[in-house]
């Protein structure tokens, strides 16, 4: 294992990076007054962005492993699947908390729950919470590998619902969501292609 791969594989590296994104983009700006004219809206948008890109990151790990099975860095990254997934859920919960704060009171919060836009976000977040709660070894043992794997395929559903949620979130935010969708579709496509034609390299 190369030096870089060894660093990437370390738990401290992974946790520093995952928490660091939040510290750098949410906490430091909040305490230094860098959130601009509408601070909670800023936190709301940024936390949502972090959550969905983190979810995108964990979903890209399997295709990357299939595509580059011998890459030391890809394998190192794959050791952190659980923590990346749990981080996506935590940032999602931060995002939801910001939504509650942004609405300000019960009336406005209840109003927001009447919008399909909110339902998509909540559906995705509920899945992430369920997956985070069953991400520990105990749950894997309890459910059995097969059922656990099946359950955790829901991550794809969460991604689909959340990318849709993000794509309709802003007047122009689709232009951000489509990048994530594009990358994931590309990776999944390559993974499926490689599985369907595994020996394309060997065949004449």
């Amino acid at each position, binding site marked *: 294992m190369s030096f870089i791969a060894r660093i990437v594989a370390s738990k401290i590296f992974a946790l520093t990076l995952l928490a660091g994104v939040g510290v750098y983009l949410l906490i430091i700006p909040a305490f230094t007054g860098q*959130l*601009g*004219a*509408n*601070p*909670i*809206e800023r936190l709301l948008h940024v936390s949502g962005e972090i959550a969905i890109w983190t979810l995108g990151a964990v979903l890209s790990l399997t295709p990357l492993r299939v595509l580059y099975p011998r890459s030391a860095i890809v394998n190192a990254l794959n050791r952190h699947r659980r923590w990346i997934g749990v981080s996506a859920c935590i940032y999602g919960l931060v995002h939801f908390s910001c939504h509650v704060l*942004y*609405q*300000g*009171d019960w*009336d*406005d919060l209840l*109003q*927001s729950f009447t*919008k*399909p*836009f909110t339902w998509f976000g909540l559906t995705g977040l509920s899945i992430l919470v369920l997956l985070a709660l069953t991400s520990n070894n105990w749950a894997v043992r309890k459910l059995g590998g097969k059922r656990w794997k099946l359950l955790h395929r829901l991550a794809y559903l969460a991604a689909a619902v959340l990318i849709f949620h993000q794509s*309709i*979130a*802003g*007047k*122009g*935010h689709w*232009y*951000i969501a489509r990048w994530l969708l594009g990358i994931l579709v590309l990776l999944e496509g390559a993974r499926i292609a490689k599985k369907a034609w595994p020996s394309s390299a060997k065949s004449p």
Partner: protein
Amino acid sequence: MHIQKKYSWQLPDSAVTPESHHMRRREFLKTCGLGLAVGAFVPNMARGATFGFPDSLNPSDTLPGVKLTPYSDITGYNNFYEWGLDKGDPKVNANKGWKTEPWTIEIGGLCRKPAKYDVNDLVRTIGGIEQRNYRHRCVEAWSMVIPWDGFALSKLVTMAEPQTEAKYLRFTSFLDPKNCPGQQTHDFPWPYTEGLTLPEATNELAFLATGIYGKPLLNQNGAPIRLVVPWKYGFKGAKSLVRIDFVAEQPATLWNQMAPDEYGFYANVNPEVDHPRWSQKTERVIGAGFFGSRQPTLRFNGYEKEVADLYKGLDLRKNF
């Protein structure tokens, strides 16, 4: 003597000067001498229409307790997609050498006096500018109170002498994909267009702004000249205008083309008609800080008395 009429939308100067401005004044006195030196190093913010400043705000006491939004928020929190999707983008991207002076605006279409004007000449021809404090309600459910400098749109309409077939006005923003990054993408049908009915345009509230807080508009706010329609959602206020046309048919507008179910042609502020994705009943006040609460949104953004007659017999739920 110059006698000024008081309108209900003219907020009192005294009630609205933000504290930060008092503080700034004090600081200014302290560093008076230094100020002159610093002036030479002010960043190169291209200024638009400079004619008519300083102008004056008519004092009035009809809306007590309303606080003006700080200048830094008005000039740092902008929806101006030509210069980026993030609200902090326009302040940066629109000030990388983009020139808004000199600037030509063309008045055309179904009118007897079509003409091209340099913006400063237009202000001169109209007879100068005045300051008005207007509520500003964004369709995204946040609000500001902005002291605009400019002139009533009705003056321009009168000057252009619309023909009888003219039923609408179409406002067109600049198209400069070479210098404007947002316009290099095909995500929006540039240039930005907006529209008003002729009766809306001749309502005394409809305004063409050339400044904010007694200073020429900055690029991020739509320099050198932009539309302000305070009883409608902010997106109606097309920025950096290059054309105003009198037309017979309801003009296509950018946001209405993008998402007709979300952004109607009228776009009157209406707490009873929700946006598909959020409620319009309340609004977050910009500048109120981290824990600032929401305030109820008013019908026609508080200008019901002045504009409700324009929509008599119109179903405002359908014609949102």
